[in-house]
């Protein structure tokens, strides 16, 4: 029997609560709040307690989907990212960089949000970037 508790940070908001994802023989078997973590100190909200719910959900999307006609079609990451880049480039060329806006998320890490800023201001060339709480 292999017993493991993996420390991770809750993905649901920006508070940064910490929990252990418990696995037994590689299967998720539960969540323990981390009592030694500075931020959450052994406490979680309902989302944190149920943070593993989506992992094995049959509804979980595991690949990007591209809309073709009136259908969503499964695609590879390369395919999806190339399509997004091509479309953004085309829009930028046609209407300028300020015709594009980026919305980031409290679910992202600080570092991911930093990269979104880079992408927005340095790569695309627009200051149109905001976070989901102001949607």
């Amino acid at each position, binding site marked *: *029997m292999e017993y493991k*508790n993996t420390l991770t940070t809750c993905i649901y908001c920006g508070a940064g609560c*910490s929990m252990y994802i418990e696995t037994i023989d590689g299967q998720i*078997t539960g969540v323990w709040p*981390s009592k*030694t*973590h500075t931020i959450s100190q052994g406490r979680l909200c*309902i989302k944190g*307690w149920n943070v593993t719910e989506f992992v094995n959900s049959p509804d979980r999307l595991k690949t990007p989907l591209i809309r073709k006609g009136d259908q969503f079609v499964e695609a590879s990451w390369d395919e999806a990212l190339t399509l997004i880049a091509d479309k953004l480039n085309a829009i930028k060329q046609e209407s300028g960089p300020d015709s594009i806006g980026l919305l980031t998320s409290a679910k992202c890490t600080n570092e991911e949000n930093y990269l979104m800023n880079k992408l927005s201001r340095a790569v695309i060339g627009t200051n149109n970037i905001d976070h989901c709480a102001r949607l």
Partner: protein
Amino acid sequence: MSEIEEIRKLVAERLTKGDAKGTTIDGVVALCKSSDGIAPYVFQKGDDLSGLEISPKYPVMTLVSKLHKMFPTIRLGVVARGCDERAYIEMAKRNQIDPDRLYILGFACTAEDAQTCHCLAPYPKQLVVGTPPAPGPINPLVEKYDAMSLGERRAFWKQQFNKCIKCYGCRNICPECFCEACAMEDMAWVEPGLLAPPFPTFHMIRAMHMASRCIACRECENTCPAHIPLTVLYDLMRRDITTLLGYTPGADIAAKPPLSVNLDEAPLRVGAGH
């Protein structure tokens, strides 16, 4: 040798030599320290025991129960405090663990633990390591509550339960909460999507279900993000169960829980209590 070193040595011994009767032990449930902090762990033969810890306390009996159910022949040890042993006693009575497949390595809590937990029995009966500290004081909030009028008591709970964010943490962390269908998730009692939860139903459902089960480990209060003094509620419930039905949860593995037997066997003490 310090208390923790003694525990590590005994766990190593049990993993190699088996329990007191020489029966093999497949794993010992305790806490393990790593760069990720301190979390429950199952130590097995050959594991490095230098990371074995006993603090901060986690409800380790919940893990024992999970493993006993998943692996029907597994034999475990557990490094247990007084409250873990009390949890073990009430779990055994409700078929949540198999006492024949569990060895208890009991240790005494520190005097400081006993104080902060307001613990009346800060050491297990099967004490192996440590010296029993003096019991902690009675929760001062319970004394304050006792002095309140009925109206004040209602106002007190109304104010406290209004803080509830319905995380279900008190239920999730509780070693004695193991119903397969939880009444706190039953739409007939608790309408989904509303905050605060229905007063006083939501918290009283759990309080009633914990009668004769709550072993005063304080995990519910410690995990409550809204800082609701839940142990006041459960201390009062425990006091009623002891006064009215003569039952102390976690004290005696042979004593039958009064709510699991009929009243002929456990008559109410008419006139007792308050």
